[in-house]
């Protein structure tokens, strides 16, 4: 097989259905014309008893639950991009043949792998709402005819046998020629090619000879190749604006499916996703999701996006959105002999996103003490993929009980007689013993200068607290626990 054709029957109908929530499983028809002239052009399988050409009023009478829509050019463009992306995963030479059809030049491709790829793409397209078919054969014409007969994949290996049985209208004869061939009693390609080509040419002219060539499988044509996607983005608007997360997720999934396929076709995965939500009041909410484990798995993306959206509250309705994937090269991972990396990286990063949705993104991560002497200064960073080997034990092992902080520090009254002697307020009692002070200061060269004097005090109950005196007065910073 040298060529493959991916095609989606009733393309406009399926493009519309995959772009609009709530249409799945319902009787749906596309209507052309207006008023009394409105007629059905494409109809879904659920609309029993309705056929293309029916007046819209008759369709509504016969099938009361039917949903009538006009074509959605935006949805068709998006569906066509998805189809093209699927085609580019098979081979780099692709033609956008027509709306809902593209032809792939497979010359040089390994047949077994290509066939597996075609079946896989068909399954993915079907899951993405485009029930596509694929046919493959020696010429672009043959592949296109095979696609029309495919359920859903048909690879023509015996071209002559396949062609012989095809009806003549597949070869698209001129209307005048079709009538003549009908009158001659010719119905199939085999009937036509049984006649000598020269005799057909004598009677039907050059068009007749070309028709014979096509029917014999000898005709070919040059593909008009298109370029693969260079940017991996999708933008859409809602009319009217939406208030809940479901419509947003529905569209996100649809666009993510296409972007993921485009990335894979280009040999990339997503290193990061950027989601911009345009609100009705003119403001934008933008969030970038860096994917620590780059991939092109739509479900993983959606879980991360959903975890964020579930916790998002906006001030106005959502009027539109934009999703951009930053391409990255697929990671190559080799487990080390003593590797203590993540057992399930996807679950780990997804759950981190979920935790961010629960407590806030800035409140989850691996802590590290900030490079300052300021009390309670730390940063929360991204957890390591692999737990590194521990450093040698510190020269001075940790001593004493460990501070448990009160955030924010609690104000406390202190009777100070060279050292804290009595405390009142958030903690109360006579100070039995005290250690300190430890004085620290920093940032004195800039406006945020700070200074603190720290004490440890033991109350009569045996509890040990950490006090700090700053410009704002005494605070109890925590308990040694």
């Amino acid at each position, binding site marked *: 097989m040298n060529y493959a054709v991916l095609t989606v029957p009733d393309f406009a109908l399926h493009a519309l259905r995959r772009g609009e929530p709530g249409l799945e499983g319902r009787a749906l028809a596309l209507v052309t014309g207006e008023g009394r002239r409105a007629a059905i052009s494409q109809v879904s399988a659920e609309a029993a008893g309705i056929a293309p050409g029916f007046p819209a009023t008759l369709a509504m009478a016969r099938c009361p639950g039917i949903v009538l829509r006009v074509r959605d050019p935006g949805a068709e463009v998006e569906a066509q991009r998805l189809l093209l992306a699927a085609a580019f995963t098979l081979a780099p030479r692709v033609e956008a043949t027509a709306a809902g059809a593209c032809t792939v030049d497979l010359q040089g491709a390994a047949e077994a792998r290509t066939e597996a790829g075609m079946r896989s793409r068909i399954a993915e397209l079907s899951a993405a709402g485009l029930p596509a078919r694929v046919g493959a054969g020696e010429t672009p014409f043959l592949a296109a005819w095979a696609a029309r007969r495919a359920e859903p994949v048909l690879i023509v290996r015996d071209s002559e046998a396949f062609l012989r049985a095809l009806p003549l209208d597949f070869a698209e004869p001129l209307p005048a020629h079709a009538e003549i061939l009908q009158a001659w009693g010719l119905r199939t390609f085999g009937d036509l090619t049984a006649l000598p080509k020269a005799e057909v040419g004598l009677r039907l002219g050059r068009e007749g000879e070309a028709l014979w060539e096509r029917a014999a499988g000898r005709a070919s044509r040059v593909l008009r190749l298109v370029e693969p996607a260079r940017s991996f983005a999708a933008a859409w608007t809602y009319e009217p604006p939406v208030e809940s997360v479901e419509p947003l997720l529905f569209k996100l999934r649809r666009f993510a499916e296409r972007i993921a396929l485009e990335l894979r076709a280009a040999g990339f995965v997503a290193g990061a996703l950027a989601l911009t939500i345009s609100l009705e009041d003119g403001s934008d909410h933008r969030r970038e999701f860096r994917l620590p484990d780059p991939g092109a798995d739509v479900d993983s993306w959606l879980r991360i996006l959903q975890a964020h959206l579930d916790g998002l509250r906006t001030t106005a309705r959502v009027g539109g959105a934009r999703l951009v994937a930053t391409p990255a090269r697929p990671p190559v991972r080799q487990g080390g002999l003593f590797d*203590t990396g*993540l*057992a*399930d990286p996807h*679950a*780990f990063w997804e*759950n*981190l996103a*979920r*935790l961010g949705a*629960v*407590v806030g993104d800035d*409140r*989850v*991560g*691996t*802590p*590290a*003490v900030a490079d300052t002497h300021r*009390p*309670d*200064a*730390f940063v*929360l960073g991204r*957890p*390591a993929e692999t*737990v*590194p*080997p*521990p*450093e040698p034990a*510190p020269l001075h*092992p*940790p*001593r*004493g*009980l*460990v*501070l*448990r*902080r*009160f*955030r924010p520090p609690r104000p406390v009254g202190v009777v100070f007689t060279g050292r804290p002697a009595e405390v009142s307020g958030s903690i109360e009692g006579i100070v*039995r*013993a*005290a*250690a300190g002070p430890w004085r620290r200061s920093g940032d004195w060269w800039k406006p945020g200068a700070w200074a603190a004097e720290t004490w*440890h*005090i*033991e109350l009569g109950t*045996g*509890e*040990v607290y950490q006090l700090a005196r700053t410009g704002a007065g005494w605070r109890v910073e*925590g*308990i*040694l*626990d």
Partner: protein
Amino acid sequence: MAAASTLSALRSLVAARFPATERRPGNCVPTGIAAIDGALGGGLAAGELTEVISGGEGCGGQLLTALLLAGTRAARQRVALVDGADGFSPDAVPADALRHLVWVRARNPGEALAAADVLARDGNYAAIVIDLRGLAEGALRRTPDAVWLRLRRAAESRPAAILVQTEFPLVPAVARRLVLRMPRGLSHRRREQAELAAQATAEMVRGRAAAAEEMAG
């Protein structure tokens, strides 16, 4: 009621007479406090919830967290800390003992338990510490039992040992509950933490040892 108490007594009897038959889903995670590890048969059991009460303030709960961090760091295991009252102080433990930690800074019991539920279903952690000390008792008591049951069920299918730190008995039907006591006072501030940990006591109030004591009584 009678049937339930009979069943409970039967379970206690089996646990006390045949300790080897008690379900141990996987490895243990040593806490670094000998009294706790001894009472638990080596450490926190993977796939189970263990509740440690350090009642009142200043009873060693934070030292337990720090030692658990040090031990798991040495073993290069990953640890999560759900910090219910946001009391963990990164500068109170060695910097290297933080590199395997995922710290979740919750604000209330709802956030803490929701985060714990997510972490319990993740298969990447050796230990998950849920520190609920410092949270309002009333709010914690209002937590439906179903939340704990769900957490326990989630833990059963994962390799993580879950340590719940509380100030009072809280977790219903927990497998093991201990009360931790630690020497207090300013005089101990220069003693090495390992030395302090060696002086800690842990009383098993629910679990195998408690059942054995009950039987003996």
